[in-house]
């Protein structure tokens, strides 16, 4: 059995830092496993988290976990900006041995497997290839997992394991065509630089069906909102899979492998699996049901102008703003209800840069008298899919997309 204790794990991290020539200045976080700066309102708790600004290239973030980093975006960021600033964009790593130093001159993306010509692509070469740019929401498969009832184990995210950015990069199709995909290929598997700290654990890799990988929109992105990516968000190259959950958006991408058969790697075959039922919904406690790898996103919306549980001065008209996403297609409409869902009024929609991005919505809700008011937003996408009123449940805590009411007190 491979033995590795805490000190060895830290030594491994330290060796990486030494190799990068930046050891010695490691900022020590105060010993605070559980902070109390922000309340994510997770049913039954623990619900409070510390805010942290201790992570490189990141601003104030909700600290879910220091090692490996899990950082959540506070909801007010989505109110402030339709595009999530790079330094406020959520962070999620699986394995503790994550890259801390990238040399752009020696970095290579290796393309191999079932291809005519294996390639080793430098970043200078990548920058000279044809580019596309599009806006897309990057949302963790487990976003809002902490709100599941009954609760399920896993990273206990509120709603902030998501962000919207403009991504610029090279279509994966272009790189695959350069390598020449051989007949019989079925899928494309990608891997990044993060590695397990323990021997024998499965390297984090994900794969897409070949047709999906070659759709011309899946891209090797080197720019995020016009700048190079923060390292914690995948610098220098991250896979962008518009409309699909973030688990496929491989960070620090350095390998592309064309497969001629099914991907039986743990991270595709066992992890990130959802029930095949509508909304990935099963009865709480269910275990044996058919599953499939999590895939496309579905519509969601959040009211961001007022905070759930807050009190505001009374005014007969309550202005409402929020953000909506269609999933893997655009937003068709957002409706607002302040009558518990009995009546709905259409919200006004802001501009759409790309169908995969966030869309701003605004509305005005009449509040006849001071007191408690529950406001709901409900997004319908261009495929006709509408957010359900009831929350789904599955043991992984995936695919939540129900209407998220906000209850405020006025006066």
């Amino acid at each position, binding site marked *: 059995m491979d033995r590795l204790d*805490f000190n060895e794990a830290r030594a491994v991290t330290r060796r990486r830092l030494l190799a990068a020539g930046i050891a010695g200045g490691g900022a020590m976080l105060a010993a605070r496993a559980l902070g109390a700066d922000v309340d994510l309102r997770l049913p039954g708790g623990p619900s409070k988290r510390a805010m942290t600004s201790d992570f490189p290239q990141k601003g104030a973030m909700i600290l879910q976990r220091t090692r490996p980093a899990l950082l959540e975006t506070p909801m007010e960021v989505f109110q402030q900006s339709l595009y999530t600033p790079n330094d406020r964009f959520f962070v999620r790593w699986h394995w503790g041995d994550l890259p801390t130093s990238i040399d752009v001159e020696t970095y290579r993306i290796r393309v191999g497997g079932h291809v005519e010509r294996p390639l080793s692509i430098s970043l200078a070469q990548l920058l000279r290839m044809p580019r596309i740019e599009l806006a897309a929401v990057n949302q963790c498969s487990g976003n809002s997992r902490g709100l599941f009832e009954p609760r399920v184990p896993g990273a206990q995210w509120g709603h902030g394991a998501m962000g919207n950015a403009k991504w610029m990069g090279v279509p994966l199709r272009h790189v695959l065509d350069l390598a020449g995909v051989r007949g019989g290929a079925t899928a494309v598997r990608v891997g990044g630089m993060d590695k397990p700290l323990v021997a024998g654990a499965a390297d984090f890799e994900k794969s897409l069906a070949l047709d999906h990988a070659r759709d011309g929109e899946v891209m090797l992105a080197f720019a995020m909102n016009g700048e190079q990516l923060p390292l914690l968000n995948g610098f220098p190259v991250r896979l962008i899979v518009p409309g699909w959950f973030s688990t496929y958006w491989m960070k620090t991408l350095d390998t592309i492998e064309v497969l001629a058969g099914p991907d039986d790697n743990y991270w595709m075959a066992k992890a990130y699996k959802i029930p095949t039922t509508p909304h990935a919904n099963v009865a709480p406690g269910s275990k044996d049901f058919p599953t499939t790898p999590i895939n496309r996103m579905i519509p969601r919306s959040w009211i961001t102008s007022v905070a759930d549980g807050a009190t505001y001065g009374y005014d007969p008209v309550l202005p409402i703003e929020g953000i909506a996403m269609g999933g893997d297609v655009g937003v068709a409409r957002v409706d607002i209800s302040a009558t518990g869902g009995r009546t709905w009024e259409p919200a006004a929609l802001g501009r759409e840069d790309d169908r995969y991005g966030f869309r701003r919505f605004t509305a005005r809700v009449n509040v006849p008298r001071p007191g408690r008011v529950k406001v709901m937003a409900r997004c319908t996408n261009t495929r006709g899919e509408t957010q359900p009123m009831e929350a789904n449940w599955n043991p992984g805590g995936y695919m939540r997309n129900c209407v998220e009411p906000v209850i405020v007190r006025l006066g």
Partner: protein
Amino acid sequence: MRAPSLAAIVVVLIAGGLFVLVAIGAGSGGAPKPVTSAVPPAPSVSANGFALTSTAIDLPDDAATYPAGPHVDVVNQRCLSCHSASMALTQPRLTAAQWQATVEKMRDTYKAPIGPGEVPLIVEYLTAQQAAQSGAQQAAPQETKPQPAG
């Protein structure tokens, strides 16, 4: 080539002296000295109007260990290898069976260095720790709970 004039030499000496004074002042200030000025610019590659610049980051350490409880030494020894204590401490209230499944998954799938016989010790700690937390919450002043929807 003309010899430098006396005035030019004086200017250079004064400027050099000022530089030394500034350097001493910066060094004694206690604030971390910016290293970027002393280091050559990070390598970068560029094409078609976009540049990528080499980057190194220093991740924060996490010195937090698990709060006291039964077998906490085993938990600190085994459960800090791969992740911060906050990962376990932010979990919702789980049953012993759920913790058992989680710890076994950590051992079998994620290769956590958990030895034979240690799984029940870790499960005992986690369930006891959550019970203690839950008790502390009940003893504390009640927080304002969100109103039921409706």
